[in-house]
């Protein structure tokens, strides 16, 4: 039976059949809804820019998160799970992308919104944060919170430097491993020196210098350290050709945060305190966030 026959499907489609009418009607009625649903869904996830809170345990990440959300820091304990909140930049800091807009403008309001993602800082749970770093496409910036008073002693400094080294290294890998020649979007890092109200806290520029010094040490000993067991045990060869990567300028000489600019990461160090006798003072961090938005 060919298509031009008397009772072929094409003839039936044009004939005044009940079935044909029903199908046509159904199609005509349902199609707009489907189209609407498709378009609506495609537009709805207006992804907010994500700011990743990262840092050693007890630095004040969750406290900063609650401060951002409610304007008063809540009591917090050691985190065991990540937490994401919808945050709004305070009025005093207009986001840089919308600084020309007036306060009532909906676009301005939209620009003020961002997602703040808190991660647990305990040694055993850091891979959660690092996984976020490599997977999430929408990370706008990273806030590395560090306790400025614990950096004063060797153990705290080494812990923070270790972690920061890993973070920066994975950022560098992300840049050097990029497929396109343009490279991935820049991810700036803010080293937020928290707890400046504490008597023993180091000022931000000292925090910066000592972190750079400690990262130099970490880099040196990592370069000399033993190889991973991955290739030897797994038998898979993907680990073998993987040359060990050094952070910043081939791993020679002292490390400086400035070296990270080459791989699309600027590192700033700003001080502040989430808790404190006379209220919290994190204006500099907010100003930094506003700059990134």
């Amino acid at each position, binding site marked *: 039976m060919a298509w031009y026959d008397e009772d072929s499907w094409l003839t039936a489609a044009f004939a005044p059949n009940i079935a044909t009418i029903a199908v046509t009607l159904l199609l005509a009625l349902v199609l707009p809804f489907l189209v609407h649903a498709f378009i609506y869904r495609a537009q709805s996830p207006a992804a907010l820019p994500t700011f990743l809170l990262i840092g050693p345990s007890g630095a004040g990440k969750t406290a900063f998160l609650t401060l951002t959300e409610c304007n008063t820091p809540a009591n917090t304990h050691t985190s065991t799970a990540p937490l994401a909140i919808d945050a709004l930049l305070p009025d005093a800091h207009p986001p840089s992308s919308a600084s020309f807009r007036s306060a009532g403008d909906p676009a301005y309001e939209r620009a003020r919104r961002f997602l703040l993602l808190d991660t647990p800082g305990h040694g055993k749970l850091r891979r959660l944060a690092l996984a976020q770093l490599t997977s999430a496409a929408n990370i706008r910036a990273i806030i590395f919170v560090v306790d400025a008073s614990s950096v004063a002693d060797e153990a705290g400094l080494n812990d923070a430097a270790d972690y920061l080294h890993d973070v920066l290294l994975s950022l560098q890998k992300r840049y050097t491993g990029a497929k396109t020649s343009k490279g991935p979007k820049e991810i700036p890092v803010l080293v937020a020196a928290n707890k400046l109200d504490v008597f023993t806290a180091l000022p931000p520029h000292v925090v910066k210098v000592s972190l750079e010094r400690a990262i130099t040490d970490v880099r040196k000993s990592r370069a000399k350290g033993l190889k991973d067991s991955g290739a030897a*045990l797994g038998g898979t060869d993907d680990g073998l050709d993987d040359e060990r990567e050094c952070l910043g300028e081939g791993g020679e000489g002292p490390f400086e945060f400035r070296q990270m600019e080459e791989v699309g990461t600027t590192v700033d160090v700003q001080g502040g305190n989430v808790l404190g006798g006379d209220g919290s003072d994190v204006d500099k961090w907010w100003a930094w966030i506003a700059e990134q938005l």
Partner: protein
Amino acid sequence: MLDTFEILTTSGVVLWSRTYVPVGANVIDSLIRDVFIEERIVPQPDDVGQKPTYKKDGYTLKWTTAKDLGLIFVAVYQSLVHLTWIDKLLDNVRALFTGLYSEQVKEKKASTIDTQKFTPYFERQIQELEGQSDASTDVKLTPPSSSGNDSAEEKEHAPTFPLLQKPQRPLYDTSAESTPVVTPSNSRPTTPGQGHLIMAKGKPGQKLSRRDRKKVAATSAPASSGDEANVKRKGKGATKKNRVWGEFGADEEDPDVVLDYSQSDLRGDGAEQETLEEIKPETWGRKTGKGQFVLKDLDEEMDAIISEQNAKKEKSQPSSGLVGSSLGAIGGLFRNVVGGKTLTKEDLDKSLKGMEDHLLKKNVAREAAVRLCESVERDLVGLKTGSFTTIESTIRTSMEKALTKMLTPTTSLDLLRSIQTVNSTTTRPYVISIVGVNGVGKSTNLSKIAFFLLQNQHKVLIAAADTFRSGAVEQLGVHVKNLKELSKREGGSVEIFEKGYGKDAANIAADAVAFAEKNGFNVVLIDTAGRRHNDARLMSNLEKFAKLAKPDKIFMVGEALVGTDSVAQARNFNASFGPGRGLDGFVISKCDTVGDMVGTLVSMVHATSIPVVFLGVGQHYADLRGLNVGSVCRLLMS
């Protein structure tokens, strides 16, 4: 008494807390660290009937969790006090809180929720449970919570003190009215008047009673009991209650409550007395009228919420009837494929058994496998599976997570860094000693470590403290000769320190450290004799050894080949260095001989929660590796 009760989320935010005596935040922090993250202390399963406990700094902590919501409920009290009703309190509060706030908590993208209203509920629970524990006659004192709720409705943002104060105010009235039996005769003089007054216009009577109470309380506690029904109620524990109100109370927590009373009293005493008398009766009347409703409301509401939650729990367990069960089974099968099934213990049991067998095949000791499975079960019971995931795959991911968490070290294991730190701060060399059972490869791995250090330009002294086995010293001598050859170009230097056979190992080790310090070596590696871990006579030497040689790091070498015995080995060696000193890490040797059966790693880490530092993966000096957690997990799960 209860010191603190906190409700916090897994992300660390305190949603609601009630503090009677301030407790340092580090107490709860260390609970989270030790129990939830590092899992050093394994909680008993819930069905033992007791909530797990954790002791720290003289406090006892009891906790319970609401896993699907990610909530942790923690009660903190002094270890000296024995509180029997904490378990019940935790259960009830969990039921109440999840009943009231589950919607809000589930709503993502917010860290805190408004839990002001929860305080009266909690106070009510405390009162009830404390009352029950005393088995006093009149426990059913409903008024307090009523007005508590009342006030909570009236002013949500009021601080907790008014809420606290009000609950107790009517308490005195009712007790005085409803429990004439309990009221002793010595408080008679005031009570009749009070009774009349209450009938007429409540408030002044109550005030009178309070004033009286204060007076009497000053002289003798028992005499005041007529009005202090709540003291009675809470105690034979009259002492208990008194202590809180007397010692702490007077100046710290509850005093705010008491102060509030007295202030209102003082105000009322003077010229305002008349106006008060005029106004208060109305308010009080209104309160009784409304009060009883509301109060009933709160109590009923509370019971309803609790029973509803309990019912939900029970309903999810048994499926009744033939049709119901078969339908449920089909639905369960369907959900098993599609996902969205709430996991119960029964669902998990079979798959977990399979997982346990799988782990056993990978040479994980039974004890460790069981514990891992239990931790997965704890992790999963009560959770919903994601869409299009089966139970098996859910268990798999959860197991991978548990393994990764277990094997990931808490602190950095960078040996070179810590050598550098020690050398720059002291003149003493960095001392590493190696212990282990016979024939696991102590000397071989020692020379591998020496080779690694030599490549990094360290000056290494190897001390032959195995004075027992014939040939041990000569064997090390050969290693040193080879290493000398190999390290000539690298710039490191290595020597052997030996005193022959039959001497005391601990003394040789101490001498070696002194020798190294004098001759400018910066690392000392001490080889020890192999010893059987269940031989107390041999193991007792280790304590002296640790005391004399003072090693910075003690590594234990374990074979990857060993099976179930690995747990006992790790435990015994870890315990043998005396109090305050344990192992610092494991070196797992002969990893190249076992293929993917690397379960020994897991068993040893499980037994002691001490990290694996090195893996021996071959016969050459360079065949020493750091641990890659990801690859080990992959091998174990494959």
